[in-house]
């Protein structure tokens, strides 16, 4: 996957095409009504979330099954500060992000020392703990009832009055998020992350402080998740524990794997496609989560590179992964 990452200089059209597609989708959203706008807005929010997740899983080759915890922190931070305490949305957004980042740092210190199953289970537990707390801490989160009446996004006196203005803001924020991720990926920092994904001992031998870089990637992923959570709260005006439950983990992983893990635009493309899916499967609303899970399993089995792998069908033939009889348990994702 690393070899496929092309920097923006060698093929300019490749770098600009996704931007054009995203702007096209947004334009489509602006000309259509109600529900489509909502779906595209969600796609932008999930796109931000998955871009963060991609940092930790795609570039750094680690696994976190509990990023929903940080989305919940962002969402509840915004809901409580704006809804109950009438803070300025931007201030609440930033304070929630800082808080989520701080929590990620403190939690990441011991957690990221774990590997394999233990890392997976520990991060999964983080998500579950946050979920349980958001249900049980009634005084703060209003439990299952959730928090409603969260004001829309805005800065000082300017408030985004309708969904379409919100959509423009979300798309711009998402593009900003992607731009930051590209800048980071192509920096010294990003190269260090990819070295860790390739081989931890090798990275260490090159003088990379593996633990610190992993932690940094984890915190960045948490910042993105928190931002996505806050935006969700503003966009919908209501949050409840279910929003940030285990289904969110599966949904975001479906997006990441569909679009192509470890690629810049994969998370965005995946988010758009996964959220559009119910539109084409009207009447199957009930089956939505079943379809997501089955799609994810099928992707993991047959096309672990997702749509990004399609490109390589037309380009130079990539080296096929050599199957090992002893099975995988020992290798990290996104080699």
């Amino acid at each position: 996957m690393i070899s496929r990452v092309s920097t923006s200089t060698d093929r300019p059209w490749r770098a600009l095409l996704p931007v054009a597609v995203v702007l096209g989708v947004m334009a489509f959203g602006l000309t259509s009504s109600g529900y489509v706008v909502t779906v595209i807005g969600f796609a932008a929010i999930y796109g931000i979330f998955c871009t963060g997740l991609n940092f930790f899983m795609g570039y750094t080759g680690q696994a976190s099954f509990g990023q929903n915890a940080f989305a919940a922190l962002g969402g509840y931070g915004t809901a409580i500060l704006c809804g109950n305490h009438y803070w300025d949305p931007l201030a609440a957004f930033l304070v929630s992000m800082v808080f989520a980042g701080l929590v990620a740092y403190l939690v990441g210190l011991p957690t990221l020392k774990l590997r394999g199953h233990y890392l997976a289970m520990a991060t999964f537990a983080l998500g579950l703990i946050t979920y349980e707390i958001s249900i049980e801490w009634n005084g703060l989160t209003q439990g299952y009832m959730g928090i409603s009446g969260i004001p829309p996004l805005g800065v000082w006196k300017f408030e985004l009055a309708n969904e379409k203005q919100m959509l423009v803001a979300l798309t711009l924020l998402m593009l900003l998020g992607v731009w930051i991720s590209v800048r980071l990926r192509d920096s010294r920092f990003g190269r260090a992350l990819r070295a860790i994904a390739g081989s931890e001992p090798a990275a260490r031998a090159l003088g990379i402080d593996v633990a610190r870089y992993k932690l940094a990637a984890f915190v960045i992923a948490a910042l993105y998740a928190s931002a996505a959570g806050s935006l969700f709260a503003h966009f919908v005006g209501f949050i409840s524990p279910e929003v940030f439950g285990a289904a969110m983990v599966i949904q975001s992983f479906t997006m990441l794997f569909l679009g192509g893990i470890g690629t810049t635009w994969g998370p965005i493309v995946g988010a758009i496609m996964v959220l559009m899916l119910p539109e084409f499967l009207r009447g199957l609303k009930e089956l939505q989560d079943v379809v997501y899970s089955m799609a994810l399993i099928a992707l993991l089995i047959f096309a672990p590179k997702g749509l990004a792998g399609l490109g390589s069908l037309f380009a130079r033939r990539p080296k096929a992964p050599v199957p090992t009889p002893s099975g995988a348990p020992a290798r990290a994702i996104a080699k």
Partner: protein
Amino acid sequence: MPDAVQFIQSLVNGVGVGLIYGLVGIGFCVIYNASGIVNFAQGVFVMLGGMACEVLLRKFHLPLPIAFLIAVPFVALVGLLMEVLVVRPMWNRGSPLFAIILATLATQIMIERITILTVDEQPHTFQEFTLGGPLKIGAIAIPYQLFWIVGCGALMVGLLWLFFTRTRAGRALRACSQNREAAALLGIPVGAMLLLSFALSAALGAVAGILVTPMQAIAFNSGTPFGVSGFIAAIIGGFGNAAGALAGGILLGVLQAVAIVLLGAGFKNVAALTALLFVLFLFPSGLFAGLKPKAH
């Protein structure tokens, strides 16, 4: 401050639930030993067992033993299907560890949603195996179901022990857990062993689910707490060690019971999950490390 009676009562309940965790934990170990995979959907077998049994009792009015004998093989079959349709293809392709974990997690969500569609979202329960009770010892009440749990738990552990030490298939499974390549070279069908381990582990989960349903109502999403608790039990016991998992389960059950008394019922899962993190951070190879270290 809770009085002594309340405290002892919660310990009694804790041991009962803890045995269930232990059984689920053993289920984790069986699959892990055979394949090196941790099946994150382990808890869903508990839910399915309880749910299937409840539906058979309520809709088809079957007697409990018959419902039990249908529900357990049914869940074992689900375990088999999961191995054939999800884990085996990934295994053959040499998928990365995290992808396999994710696939088992997705399977769990899928089974939960299918349960909602085919049964419903409500919690279900059925009456205790033996009516009457609870047994009163002074001020402490012991529900009859607890004796069933202890009895069946002991029976299961005994049968498992016989299986692993006395039968060819059980020994082959143990050989696989020690060294898969060597086992294959000795002519042990490693693939079939993997299949067997999933069926066995699913059946174990189903029995645990049927035992616990009269004490705690089971809903479509009850699997995750049991799965996570079972995983914690397995870790406390040093992953892959069945006896350790059972002991770990009881320890965890008691800890949760104490947490319920001190913090209220709502935070019992938070307490268990926090315990998980502490065990992971401080004792990554289990509290009884040294017996069979297998951390990684």
